[in-house]
């Protein structure tokens, strides 16, 4: 029992375990605390759970997260002051309440009395301060600091359970982003564990605690018995890493895994017929679309009416049914249901190829010059190839010639995210995953001109986007964002397609309602049937 609490370093990583005397003493103290708390005995009696996932985590350090792929690990092992609840809406997690000053710059948080780290230590306001300090420290090199922690001027410790966060600029997305961009870590753990403290033993506050890991093979977690409110029903959880779709899906067919995530739509249908497997869908925030090069590609694409016409030329419902077999939801806007401010009223583009062709002719579209489409060849996104080919064939039907180039993921993202956009690319298949219900992530990194994934430029919209977070009143902000969304619908910088459903394969002995609007599995509410 003491093992699991102190954290015997997983030797498979090849890193030597170096624990100073202080750690052993602290560990001993922690062990004593844990023994007193109801816990370890229970952990032994609880059944194991095995989950097959598709990619390995690239890091276990919350200040070094580089992409959405890692959240399957972090969302289960770490928490912020606020974060998604079971409906995917922002709710108090480590904080039990907060107040905010009228100018939106000073936030007071009160922490839960029973919030603990995996090593048994209570979560204090000092840990919150330390989490901020580490996240912005130059030597940490946090690549995502600019989103949230860099905007914090100071974190003041009021008492053991209360802290005050002072922002530099008003930011309406602050609370929402706490869930994904500011995980709370333990000062004691980091200061005593030496270099790269999270590589060998990451300590967080989430419903699951880290046990051991074999890179590219599996990650073992255990249910954290002392969690403040989300104690899992399982003892040991193994996340098996199986990149190959077919092999991964086979795991739930044979019963080797209880849950399989990211099932491609085509494999889901036949699985539904099996008696020992249930297919569970939940809406996610992974958007699929075709970005239009409105900067320096085909000259016709620089006109908004042409871009709208392209949207009208594609029968998105038919394409969705054919390629995604219904495991997706068509979206009209550059955002989806559930995103704040996305509920603007607009007239849908509709499917009208004849009208689309008319518009193109009237606009003087050069039909002799083909549209060059960049697609993703290797399957990180389900049905990526088929989607591009489908869109191309719809465009062909209204007389627009297309040339498709499929690239592997590395080449694709180098082109999509290049500083200077390639004029030889007119349309790019792309996907963007929002991490929470706040719209600023996508709008600022995919629409605003000059941002990494933006192939569009409009000074008026840029000005609006820059003001988007500078609101204290939620209602005012909502109206403002709705206005932006409506304008973007008119401008049509993308051929919007759909959001992909998260498709899970679950064994019959499991009962689970996956959290909607997250694009990774949140496992604390998995139950035995």
């Amino acid at each position: 029992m003491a093992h699991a609490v102190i954290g015997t370093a997983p030797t498979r990583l090849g890193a030597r375990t170096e624990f100073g005397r202080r750690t052993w003493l602290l560990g001993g103290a922690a062990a004593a605390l844990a023994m007193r708390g109801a816990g370890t005995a229970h952990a032994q009696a609880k059944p194991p759970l095995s989950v097959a996932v598709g990619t390995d985590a690239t890091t276990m350090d919350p200040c070094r997260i580089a992409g959405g792929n890692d959240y399957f690990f972090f969302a289960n092992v770490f928490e912020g002051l606020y974060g998604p609840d079971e409906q995917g809406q922002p709710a108090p997690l480590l904080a039990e309440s907060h107040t905010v000053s009228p100018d939106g710059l000073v936030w007071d948080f009160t922490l839960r009395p029973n919030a603990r780290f995996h090593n048994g230590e209570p979560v204090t306001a000092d840990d919150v301060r330390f989490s901020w300090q580490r996240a912005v420290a130059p030597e940490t090199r946090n690549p995502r600091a600019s989103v949230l922690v860099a905007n914090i001027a100071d974190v003041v410790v009021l008492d053991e359970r209360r802290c005050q966060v002072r922002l530099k600029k008003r930011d309406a997305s602050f609370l929402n982003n706490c869930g994904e961009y500011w995980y709370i870590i333990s000062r004691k753990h980091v200061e005593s564990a030496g270099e790269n403290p999270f590589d060998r033993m990451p300590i967080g506050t989430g419903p699951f605690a880290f046990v051991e890991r074999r890179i590219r093979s599996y990650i073992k977690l255990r249910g954290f018995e002392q969690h403040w409110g989300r104690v899992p029903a399982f003892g040991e959880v193994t996340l098996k890493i199986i990149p190959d779709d077919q092999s991964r899906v086979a795991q739930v067919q044979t019963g080797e895994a209880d849950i399989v995530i990211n099932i491609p739509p085509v494999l889901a249908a036949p699985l539904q017929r099996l008696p020992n497997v249930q297919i569970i869908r939940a809406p996610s925030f992974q958007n699929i679309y075709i970005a239009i090069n409105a900067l320096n590609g085909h000259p016709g694409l620089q006109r908004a009416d042409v871009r709208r016409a392209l949207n009208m030329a594609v029968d998105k419902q038919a394409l969705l049914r054919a390629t995604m077999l219904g495991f997706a939801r068509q979206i009209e806007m550059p955002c989806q249901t559930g995103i704040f401010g996305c509920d603007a009223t607009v007239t849908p583009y509709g499917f009208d190829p004849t009208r689309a062709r008319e518009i193109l002719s009237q606009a003087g579209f050069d039909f002799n010059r083909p549209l060059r489409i960049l697609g993703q060849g290797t399957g990180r996104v389900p049905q990526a190839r088929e989607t591009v080919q489908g869109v191309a064939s719809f465009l062909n039907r209204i007389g627009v010639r297309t040339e498709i180039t499929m690239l592997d993921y590395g080449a694709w993202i180098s082109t999509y995210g290049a500083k200077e956009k390639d004029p030889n690319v007119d349309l790019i298949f792309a996907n963007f995953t929002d991490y929470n219900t706040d719209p600023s992530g996508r709008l600022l990194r995919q629409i605003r001109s000059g941002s990494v994934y933006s192939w569009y430029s409009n000074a008026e919209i840029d000005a609006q986007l820059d003001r988007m977070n500078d609101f204290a009143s939620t209602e005012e902000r909502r109206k403002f964002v709705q206005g932006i969304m409506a304008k973007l619908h008119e401008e049509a910088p993308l051929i919007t397609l759909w959001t992909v459903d998260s498709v899970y394969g679950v064994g019959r002995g499991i009962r689970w309602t996956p959290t909607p609007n997250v694009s990774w599995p949140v496992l604390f509410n998995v139950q035995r049937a």
Partner: protein
Amino acid sequence: MSATTTGRLRQARRMVRLPAWGVAGRPPILAAAVCLLIVIAAIGGGAITPYVPDEADFTAILAPPAWSEGGSWQHLLGTDQLGRDMLSRLIAGARISLLTAVAAVVAGGTVGVALGLAAGYIGGIVEAVIMRVVDAFLALPFILMALAFVAALGTGVGNIVLVMVLTNWARYARLVRSEVVSIKQRDFVALAQVAGLRPAAIALRHILPNVMTSILVLAVLDVGRAIILESSLSFLGLGIQPPEVSWGLALAEGRTYMSVAWWLTVWPGLAIVMTVISFNALGDWLKAGFDPRGRL
């Protein structure tokens, strides 16, 4: 490696395919017929396909072959996940698969033979340098090499051919060089030199023809290997990309649907296997005819 060891090891490796029947033996009619069929399909390409191989038809997705329940004679071998006709894709795939394989073999062979000739005939520092480079290229199992090249050069038909040439040429170079080294000692070469012929002329007109048969046998046996290499690359997502179609790509694309639509993987798989077996049988027969003792 020493020449003798090389020779023995090569002997060991080549004996792999020595058939048990006698010298030359029965010509493999069936194999030749299959090869011919594939070649016709490859040359015909888009002109002889019943449908446009890349045209999607969303009303007929995942239709089973004509004789199965739910199939129709409109699509003899069924359709794939975008409603594209499998027979057409198979024929179009023959073109790309065979073309890439043959191009790789021919181009790789030419480069390899040229360098091998140079190395073997000129000798000295040229030979040493070339052979060390050959060793470097042969130090890696071919798929590893292919992957590294694809990562560097990118995917697509042109690049894949280039990749296969790069992984292939070294074997020809090594073979030709050792053949040349042994032929060089022979009388007729000495005579030619005495007669004052230029080295290039000797190499091309007298030595090369003697090596041709070995090259030919290696080339024919290589076609099958190249097809499998291309299909492996496409399977990993690093080979031929849509809208081109090759058998390997069709296999890779159809693989996700394997449990619901067996015909998507079985037809391309069978095509690969049949073609490779046929070319190998042809190559074996050639080898038995030209080189029964396995001198190669």
